């Protein structure tokens, strides 16, 4: 495909993807080094999807995410250190250490939260769009979910709901081939997400999710339509999950050749080739990557040293009426 992007636009996309890659590479190493607890789901290999989509969203627009949400959060503008510190469960963390990787959120940039429940963000996205309309806001909502999530009831409920009220929602199916330890296709009947959306009256587009230019172009069209009042749209982005389901999953259930083919679809390398052909020096990209890696490594170092939250904070943010007493031992 011939690119309609300027070099500057492509570099911005490259940067966005590079930061996600750097963040998750560092986080994965840190988690494997047992520097922090909990579950860690990385989206390495899938960076083009949030990057290409969030290029078309402003801070007023909202986003709902999944358990694999670092890329969504970064692309939407969340602070990398706040996120890293959250992985470490620190007081500095985006959620004060109460959430961890699976519940990263940054409401200040419209990132309404990762979600530990598959498809959990879909009804929330529907209501967010409805609420925004009631408030007279022109903002739209991007709703991310995986190819495994399309088999949960709320997916169809949400499609019907969004279409019924013509809500300004971009549904984004990140088809990374897997649903945990099983191939998503092995538990999915029929032609898939696009057909299901269409059956509820929602047109959609399929795109190679490792081609950020394609994602960006498709998202641009869809977001423009949605802002113009088209009602909801769905983008199906096919990608490949490079790593295991969680950081501790060695993913022995897949063949070396499959993994090799999947990793061959590296969205960063692909864009690098385009940029090289356009005469962008490889050096510039390497420098960018080094900067990003330095930023994320710094975030890791600071997070490692940061203060854990005070025990008392476990008892705040529960509820106003009937708030828990702080026990004497806390």
């Amino acid at each position: 495909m011939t690119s309609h992007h300027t070099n500057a636009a492509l570099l911005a996309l490259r940067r966005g993807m590079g930061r996600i890659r750097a963040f998750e590479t560092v986080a994965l190493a840190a988690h494997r080094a047992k520097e922090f607890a909990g579950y860690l789901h990385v989206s390495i290999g899938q960076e083009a999807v949030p990057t290409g989509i969030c290029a078309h969203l402003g801070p007023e627009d909202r986003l709902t995410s999944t358990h694999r949400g670092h890329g969504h959060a970064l692309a939407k503008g969340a602070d990398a250190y706040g996120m890293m510190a959250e992985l470490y469960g620190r007081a500095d963390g985006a959620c004060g250490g109460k959430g961890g990787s699976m519940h990263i959120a940054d409401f200040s940039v419209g990132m309404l939260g990762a979600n530990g429940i598959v498809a959990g963000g879909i009804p929330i996205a529907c209501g967010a769009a409805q609420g925004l309309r009631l408030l007279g806001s022109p903002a739209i909502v991007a709703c991310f979910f995986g190819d495994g999530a399309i088999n949960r009831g709320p997916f169809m409920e949400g499609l019907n709901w969004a279409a019924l009220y013509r809500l300004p929602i971009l549904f984004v199916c990140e088809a990374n081939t897997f649903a945990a330890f099983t191939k998503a296709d092995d538990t999915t009947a029929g032609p898939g997400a696009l057909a299901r959306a269409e059956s509820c009256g929602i047109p959609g587009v399929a795109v190679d999710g490792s081609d950020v230019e394609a994602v960006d172009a498709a998202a641009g069209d869809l977001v423009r339509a949605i802002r113009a009042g088209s009602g909801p749209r769905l983008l199906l982005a096919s990608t490949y999950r490079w790593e295991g389901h969680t950081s501790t999953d060695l993913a022995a259930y897949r063949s070396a050749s499959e993994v090799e083919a999947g990793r061959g679809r590296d969205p960063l390398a692909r864009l690098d080739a385009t940029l090289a052909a356009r005469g962008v020096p490889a050096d510039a990209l390497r420098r960018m990557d080094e900067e990003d890696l330095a930023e994320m490594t710094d975030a890791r170092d600071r997070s490692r040293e940061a203060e854990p939250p005070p025990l008392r904070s476990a008892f705040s943010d529960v509820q106003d009426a009937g708030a828990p007493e702080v026990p004497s031992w806390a």
Partner: protein
Amino acid sequence: MGVAVAETTFAGVVRDALADEMRRDPTVWVLGEDVRYGGIFGQYRGLAAEFGPDRVVDTPISEATIMGAGLGAALVGTRPVIEMRIADFAMPAMDELVNQIAKVRYMFGGQARARLVVRMPHGLLASSAAQHSQIVESWMANLPGVVVAVPATAADAAGLLRSAIRSDDPVLLFEPKAFFGRPAAPASDEPIPFGRARRAREGRDVTVVTWAQALDPALAGAELASAEGTQAEILDLRTLWPWDEEAVAASVARTGRLVVVEEGVTVAGFGAEIVARMAERSGPALRSVARLGAPRIPVPFAPELEAAVRVSPERVAAAIRAAAAR
């Protein structure tokens, strides 16, 4: 009042309170099945006409999404009133309630607030049978992050609904199904605070703690016992979380005798929490405790069998008498 109902009933009183709150705050809206029709208890009658289809939103039969969309709408700054029809139909929406609504504020470190109300009328109603009679109030009391309101009277339902709508917490409002049709006087405009019991009857011999539809047999049972000379004080809790532990403790300190009357299943019902708390606090000063509620059986259809689930005034009276005798 924009719309008047022919006669004032419990449903009309809460309807009026809701309409009033919707006038006060344009971010308050309603979503659920058949709300434009007026709701199955008439508790939304006339609201669609006054507030239009964008604030009184008829939804598909998609409870999970009704609940979850309510949360999403709250997260962007509106105050939805989520209509669940009856508590049983909230079961398909438990993920959205338990895993999302109750936890967003906490797990996002205070960034988010689920300012919303979930209306789930509950309790026995004329042979509604097993799938339309479930009481889950004690489950919700056990669920951190939510307020649990269980009014018995129209005035309390209206006042608690007002508090719920204005609250920054997610509030689960379990209204008494069988009482919606009762005649009722117009209620005050004042919100009723969470966590304050109402003394429904004075008495110094035995403390009876109750709430929701169980208020009926509690009051009737106390009258029976009174005829024999035993005076029960009845505390209607009105909310189960927070609950008015101090009011109960104060009364128990006077009477030394506690009888809980609840409509739901006794085993692991909220009455267990009340008795356990008082046992922990009062020690031997607590001369007798008893719980009356439903046996651990699904609710049967036949009226003759449904009676087995109901706490009768006679059983209440007997429990009051037995307590006083100890």
